[in-house]
């Protein structure tokens, strides 16, 4: 058994108030010294990695498993297969037990066992009172190794997905987000493609089995467990369960990445527009940014904090507080396996859409034209560094964070060096990074609303591409 020394002292800088002669006198704060608890890790003989953190405060155990799979592995002809497989793993029962029986047993214990697959991983989570742990582990393992993918349950799940697709244009902001991704990635990229009714209808029980067999094997997963258990005992129990489950040697399928779509990207600039007869417009403005592990992420995180990441950000102050143009306004950046998105947006009444878009652009432009003031930089860094401790919110947060960092291949010292990397950034580095990634003239817009009431014709912001929201049944 290997023990990680994930063992470091996070010192929280004692920032002296930078508010010179401010009438508000802040109390003096002690430095926060925190020794994160040690996480034990163990490799099961079957190849699964186990992360453990005992915490006996409450009679509860939480377990989360990650399986290396994801909707990104689907081909674009079978979109929906992975998420159906993830849902049916749980909802379809096992070869030993009908799902109704499993539901009754779990709910009678006040426990929950859930499964799903999203973009880059599959997950299974169990939450149970510690007195029932053995029963819970038994169900967890049974589901993982002998799912039945019951045909009737598959039809129910498909019916739910089809109805959800039929309803996907009910909410304007949901339309904006979905179509914005399609504009940036094209319609066939794993980060943008959507489930469609005809392909969902075609998915069979056999397809689920095949998908399951391709990815669900012991040396393709990790397990994080926290709470009221004994590490020694849990290792023994899991070894016993997993001993009957075969290791596999299997290469994972390739994933569609953006390079293959560059031809599409060249014409991606412009304005996507979906008409909806409502009195408030939704707008998203942005472009592709960085992949996971890009060292510029720290500068982008600070830039985002300054631009629209909080309620003291520039967009919030300008668009919301000073102008009263929006309730929701903000910015974000993502860093998935392929290029992520850097975006800002808001929801504002139709008559002020143009004014709000101009205001957002102005803020973006000022970030890549001028140095951020020392005071603003300091405030943004302090916010990120001081709130860093919330990553250690609970035992389960700590142990799953460790697992996630491992799963996504982050450097071993990622957390230990995080605050330092933020602290070291200068305003000229921020300007350089802003110039590299924030290019207003290359940004794509997505607007949902009632065009006749807009204050400014959309063509002011680029070539307008009308979007048809029709759902194919």
């Amino acid at each position, binding site marked *: 058994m290997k023990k990680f020394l994930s063992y470091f002292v996070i010192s929280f800088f004692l920032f002296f108030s930078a508010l010179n002669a401010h009438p508000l006198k802040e109390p003096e704060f002690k430095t*926060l010294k925190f020794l994160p608890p040690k996480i034990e890790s163990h490799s099961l003989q079957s190849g699964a990695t186990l992360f453990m953190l005992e915490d006996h405060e409450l009679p509860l155990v939480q377990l989360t498993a990650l399986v290396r799979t994801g909707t990104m592995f689907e081909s674009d002809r079978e979109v929906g297969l992975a998420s159906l497989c993830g849902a049916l793993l749980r909802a379809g029962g096992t070869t030993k037990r009908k799902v109704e029986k499993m539901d009754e047993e779990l709910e009678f214990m006040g426990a929950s066992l859930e499964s799903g697959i999203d973009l880059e991983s599959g997950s299974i989570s169990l939450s149970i009172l510690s007195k029932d742990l053995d029963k819970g582990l038994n169900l967890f393992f049974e589901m993982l190794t002998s799912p039945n993918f019951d045909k009737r349950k598959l039809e129910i799940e498909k019916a739910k997905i089809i109805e959800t697709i039929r309803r996907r244009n009910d909410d304007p902001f949901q339309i904006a987000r979905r179509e914005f991704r399609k504009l940036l990635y094209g319609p066939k990229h794993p980060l943008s493609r959507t489930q469609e009714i005809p392909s969902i209808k075609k998915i069979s029980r056999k397809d689920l089995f095949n998908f399951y067999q391709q990815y669900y094997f012991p040396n393709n997963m990790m397990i994080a467990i926290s709470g009221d258990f004994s590490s020694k005992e849990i290792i023994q129990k899991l070894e016993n369960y997993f001993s009957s489950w075969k290791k596999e040697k299997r290469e994972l399928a390739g994933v569609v990445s953006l390079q293959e779509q560059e031809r599409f990207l060249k014409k991606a600039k412009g304005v996507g527009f979906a008409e909806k007869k409502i009195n408030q417009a939704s707008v998203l403005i942005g472009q592709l940014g960085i992949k996971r592990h890009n060292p510029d992420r720290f500068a982008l995180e600070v830039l985002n904090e300054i631009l629209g990441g909080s309620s003291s950000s520039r967009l919030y102050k300008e668009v919301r507080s000073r102008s009263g143009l929006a309730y929701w306004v903000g910015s974000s950046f993502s860093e998935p396996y392929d290029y992520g998105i850097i975006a800002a947006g808001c929801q504002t009444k139709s008559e002020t859409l143009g004014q709000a878009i101009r205001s957002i652009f102005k803020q973006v432009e000022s970030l890549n034209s001028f140095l951020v003031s020392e005071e603003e930089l300091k405030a943004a860094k302090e916010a990120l560094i001081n709130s860093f401790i919330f990553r250690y919110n609970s035992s389960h947060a700590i142990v799953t964070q460790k697992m996630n960092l491992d799963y996504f291949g982050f450097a071993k010292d990622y957390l230990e060096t995080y605050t330092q990397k933020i602290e070291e950034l200068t305003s000229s580095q921020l300007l350089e990074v802003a110039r590299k990634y924030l290019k207003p003239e290359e940004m794509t817009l997505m607007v949902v609303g009632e065009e006749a009431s807009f204050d400014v014709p959309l063509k002011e912001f680029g070539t307008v591409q009308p979007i048809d929201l029709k759902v194919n049944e």
Partner: protein
Amino acid sequence: MKRILFFLLFLVQSSLVFSDSNDPIQNLSKRVIEQTLPNGLKILILERDQAPLVSFQMMFKTGGVDEISGKTGLAHLFEHMLFKGTKTIGTKDYDKEKTVLEEIDKTALEILEAESDAEKLNLEKIKALKKKMEALETEHQKWVIPEEYDQIYIRHGAEGLNAFTGKDMTGFVVSLPSNKWELYFLMESERMKNPVLREFYKERDVVMEERRMRYETAPQGALWENFISLAFKAHPYASPTIGWSSDIKNLTLRDARRFFSEHYVSNNATVVIVGDVRAKEVLEKFNAYFSSLSSGTLPSSYKTVEPPQSGEKRSLVNFDAEPSLLLGFKKPNPPHPDNFVMEMIEQLLSRGRSSRFYRNIVEKKIALSVWASNGNPGERYSNLIVFGGSPRKPFKNKDLEIAILQELDRLKKEKVSEQELEKIRNQIEADFIRNLSSNSGMASQLAYNQVVLGDWKYLFQYLKKMRQVTPEELQASAQKYFVEDSKTVTFLERKSLKLP
């Protein structure tokens, strides 16, 4: 993210207890430390040192229900205003700023007056006044440090800085690294003592946008607003917490100041702190920061009593969205014993995969989703148990309504098994224990039970009462409350294109 207006389904899921001696729930009730200052301000502290973090909640027993007619939305707009700073936060020079603020207020009232004179609308005058207002607001910006109140919290590492207004109450929440706990007292006592309601008219516009976002362009919001205002005809629960548009547009700074002085008094509030703090230290400082606040006489709590309903009520919302429905019945609020039975019914029908709704409606492909929620839109006065859902094509709202009513009929006709009740009790107990692992979750529950239901210990009482509900009581309550006479139904559908 911030300043959420009430939760659409305001479920405060309180929960229950085991019976053994090392039971975490029993122990917990002994660990809550309670104190009240001479001015009536109450504090509850629960020490938890699992992580160096602490969560806070300050709740006032004032909400939409405390507004007067024509001023709906005032409680919520006022909640927003408490983030605008104080005489020392958010300003470069308060004395100079004050003069401009007074001018702005005066001009805003003149605009309102000019606009309300419908008979001879003087457009020239209105235009001139609006121009003046714009100039004043520009002038005012010279003195403002925008969002400084949030900024101070955020730069100290605050998470979840937020607030919410419901029909019954208003809550302010934040979590901090535990070494910064005293900052909370400084910031909250500042805004209680010296709030400056700056940028009021811009914030009013922000709330209009919030209203558009949550209720006018969102089908579920539109449906909810329509349904609640149909179910109640006299009691103030009828009007939406965010306010009717025309009321919001006419709210003034004076209204806001009055609301503050009447409702934001120390004897109308409770502070809850859960996390890595030492109660003794906290109590000393509590006294130092808050004892100078003044208490007040709360305005009359008289509310129009909702007259008995004498027949089913029905309405239709035309909306460009797929169909969905809400259906509700009137019933008593806590601490009435039947309220516990309704809590049980909510769980029995809609909690989890083995629930009756899931098995008999969702799995029969009649609906995409269907749920139950007891205690809407508030719990200070008699209220509704609400059922809602979205039918799955080719089924329609009508089919889903029938399916829900069939389940209610079953409750009236058949006794629920002990096994099924026991399952619910176990789930509620497990939830309660899970919630203990969250500082902010515990703070919310303690605050809600203290402020809205009158005593934080009600949280534990709830668990005990839920243990005692019998199959007979459940059947009797179903028969008593699920009756045609007190039913309200609202359908949301696309406008039919058929000619009459």
